[in-house]
C-alpha cells in the first residue's frame, strides 16, 4: 500500500483542474487562473482529463446542472471544491489537491458512485460527457425512419443543408459552458453538419453583471482568452501574468512587444469576424490599445450568434473567445 500512497502524493502535486467560471464572479476566475499559473498546474480541457473541479463562485441553478454532468463525467480520483470569496480560492485549490491523495476518501467516493443510467430515453444528465453534448446523433443518411431506437438511447440525425450546398447530417450539440477558455455561463447550442455550424443560439446561463474592473485589466484578460483560443499558450500565460501584475508592469510591455512581432498569429486570425472591428487582427490591435487606456469594444450576443454560422468549430471558438470576454457596459439583461 505504500506504493499507491506515494503515487497518489506525487499525483496530487500537479492536479489538472477543471475551472467552472460563474457569471458575475470574474475576480474569482482570475484568482484561480493566477494560482494555477503560479503553481504550474494544468487546466483540464475536459472532465475526462480533470482531477479537481473548482467552481469559481456558487453556480446558479442552470449552471449547476452542467456542473453535475461534468462531475459525473470525471473519472476517479476526483475532488470537487467551491470558492465563494476571493480569499477562499487558494485554500480551496490546495485542500482539493490534498484530498486527491487521501486514499480512503477516494475509495469511498469510487464505491458510492453509481453507474450512469443508460436508459432508452436519451437522458442528457446520464450521458457521461460534459454538458456540451445533449443529444448523441448518429449520421444514418437517407431513407431511414426516425423512430428506430438505437442502443444507448441514441437518436438518428436529421439532414440539413450545409454551407457548401451539401445535405449532411445535422448534429445538435451544445458547446460550453465548461470548455476551457469560455467565460462563465456561455453555452452555444449549435446544429453541426460535419464540423460546420449551420445554426447557433447563444444561451447565457444565470446571467449576472460582472463587477467593475479597470479596462486595461479586462483587455488583458480578453487578450489571454483570445491567445488561448488561438493556441499560443505561452502568450496566454504572459497575458495572465501581465493581468496579475498590473497594466503598466514589465510583463505587460514584454507581452505587447511580442504581440507586435507575432506574424503567424495575425495570419491565422485574418478574415475572421470580430465584435466592433473588421476582423480579429484589428480586434487584437484594439485590445492592445485598450491596455494602454483606450476604450474596449462592445460585444453583443446576437452579433455572436450571427457571426459563427458558417464557421467550423475551431474558428467559431476563436470568435466566441473574442466576443465573450467583453461584457457590454451595463449588461445585466
Amino acid at each position, binding site marked *: 500500500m505504500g506504493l499507491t500512497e506515494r*503515487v497518489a502524493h506525487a499525483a496530487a502535486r*500537479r492536479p489538472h483542474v477543471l475551472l467552472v467560471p460563474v457569471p458575475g464572479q470574474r475576480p474569482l476566475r482570475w484568482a484561480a487562473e493566477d494560482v494555477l499559473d503560479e503553481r*504550474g498546474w494544468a487546466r483540464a480541457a475536459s472532465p475526462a482529463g480533470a482531477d479537481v473541479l473548482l467552481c469559481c463562485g456558487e453556480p446558479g441553478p442552470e449552471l449547476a446542472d452542467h456542473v453535475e454532468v461534468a462531475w459525473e463525467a470525471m*473519472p476517479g480520483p476526483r475532488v470537487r471544491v467551491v470558492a465563494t470569496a476571493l480569499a477562499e480560492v487558494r485554500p480551496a485549490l490546495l485542500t482539493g489537491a490534498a484530498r486527491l491523495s487521501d486514499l480512503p476518501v477516494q475509495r469511498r467516493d*469510487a464505491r458510492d458512485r453509481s453507474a450512469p443510467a443508460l436508459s432508452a430515453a436519451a437522458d442528457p444528465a446520464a450521458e*457521461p460527457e460534459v454538458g456540451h*453534448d445533449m443529444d448523441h446523433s448518429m449520421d444514418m443518411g437517407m431513407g431511414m425512419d426516425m423512430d428506430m431506437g438505437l442502443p444507448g438511447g441514441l437518436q438518428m440525425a436529421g439532414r440539413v443543408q450545409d454551407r457548401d450546398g451539401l445535405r449532411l447530417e445535422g448534429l445538435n450539440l451544445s458547446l460550453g459552458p465548461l470548455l476551457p477558455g469560455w467565460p462563465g455561463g456561455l453555452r452555444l447550442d449549435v446544429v453541426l453538419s460535419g464540423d460546420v455550424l449551420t445554426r447557433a443560439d447563444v444561451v447565457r446561463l444565470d446571467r449576472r453583471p460582472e463587477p467593475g474592473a479597470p479596462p486595461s485589466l479586462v483587455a488583458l484578460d480578453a487578450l489571454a482568452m483570445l491567445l488561448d483560443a488561438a*493556441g499560443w499558450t505561452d*502568450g496566454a500565460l504572459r497575458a495572465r501574468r501581465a493581468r496579475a501584475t498590473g497594466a503598466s508592469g514589465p510583463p505587460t510591455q514584454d507581452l505587447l512587444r511580442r504581440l507586435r512581432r507575432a506574424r503567424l498569429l495575425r495570419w491565422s486570425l485574418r478574415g475572421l469576424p470580430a465584435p466592433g472591428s473588421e476582423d480579429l487582427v484589428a480586434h487584437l490591435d484594439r485590445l492592445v490599445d485598450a491596455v494602454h487606456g483606450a476604450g474596449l469594444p462592445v460585444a453583443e450576443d446576437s452579433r455572436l450568434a450571427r457571426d459563427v454560422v458558417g464557421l467550423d468549430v*475551431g474558428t467559431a471558438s476563436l470568435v466566441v473567445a473574442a466576443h465573450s470576454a467583453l461584457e457590454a457596459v451595463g449588461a445585466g439583461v
Partner: protein
Amino acid sequence: MPVSELLLAPLALALLAGFVVVSYGADRALAARAAGRELTAAGLSPWPDVARLLLQRRRTTTAPDALLWRVGGAGPLVAAALMLAVVPFGDTVIADLPVGIVWFNAMDVLLWAFIWLAGWGAASATALIGGYRYLAQALAYELPLMFALTAPAVAAASLDVREVVAAQGDRWHVVEMPIAFAVFLLCVAAFSLWGPFRAPAGSDLAGGVFAETSGVDRLLLLAGRHALVVAGAAFAVPLFLGGGAGPLLPDWTWQLLKTLAVLLLLVVVRRRLPVLRPERFAEVGWVLLVPLTLLQVLVTSLIVLAEAP
C-alpha cells in the same frame, strides 16, 4: 558502440523514454519562464502527470467502438517505436532495412489510421471532429513530407538510411537541402500533433482525440505523441545532419547530441507558435510546400548530376 543484439531494442526504448522526459522537462521549463514562476527540478519532472494518469480510472462512453478506440490509443506509441527501428545508432541499427526511408514513411502513414481511429472509437462528437481534423492536416503535409524524404534519398542514391549517412561524408544534407530539412521538421510536428499542429487535440474541442480518454489510455496516447516527436527528431539526424559524424566524440554520442538539439528546437517551436488550423494549413501545404519540395528535389538532382564522376 559494441552492444549485443538482444539489448538493442530495450536500449532504444529506454533512450526513447529518456528523451521524452527531457522534452517534457524542456517544455515545462519554457512554460515556467513565460508564467514567471521559478524553475525547480520537481517542476520539470513528468512523474506527477504520469502518476495521476496511472491512478486515474478508465472510462467509456455510450456505444464506443472499444476495439478501434484502444487500437487507436496505443497505435502512436507503437508507430514511434517502429520508426526508431531504422535509425542507425553509430554502427548498429535494429532493423537494417534497405528501404529505411520508406519504412519511416509507412510508419507515419499508419498514424493516419491510428489517430482517426482514436477519434472515431470514442463515439463523441468532439473526438470525432478531432480525428477528421487530423486527416485534413495529414492530407496537407503528407506529400511535402514524402518529397522532403525523397531529397536525401536522391542525394545518396539509396533508400537505406546508413547509406544516406555515408553519403554525407564531407557535406551535410542540411546545407544542400535546407528546405527539405525545414519541411521535414514541420511534418514531424504535424504527425505528432505537436505545437502548431495540435488542432486535432485542441482545447476548443475539449481535447479533441483526447476528449474522452482517461487513465492508462490517455497515458498511452500522450506518451505516443511525445515519442513520435522524439522518433522524428532522431530520424532527422541521419537524414540531414550527418548521422554520427563529428570530432572527438564517438558516433553514438553525436547521434544523441544532435537528436537532443533537434528535439529542443521542436520544443521551442511548440511554445512560440500559435495553432495552425487545418483549413488554413491546407492551402499552405498544397500551394506552397509541394512546389517548394519539388524544386528542392530538382536542385538536389542537379547537384547529384553535376557532381557525378
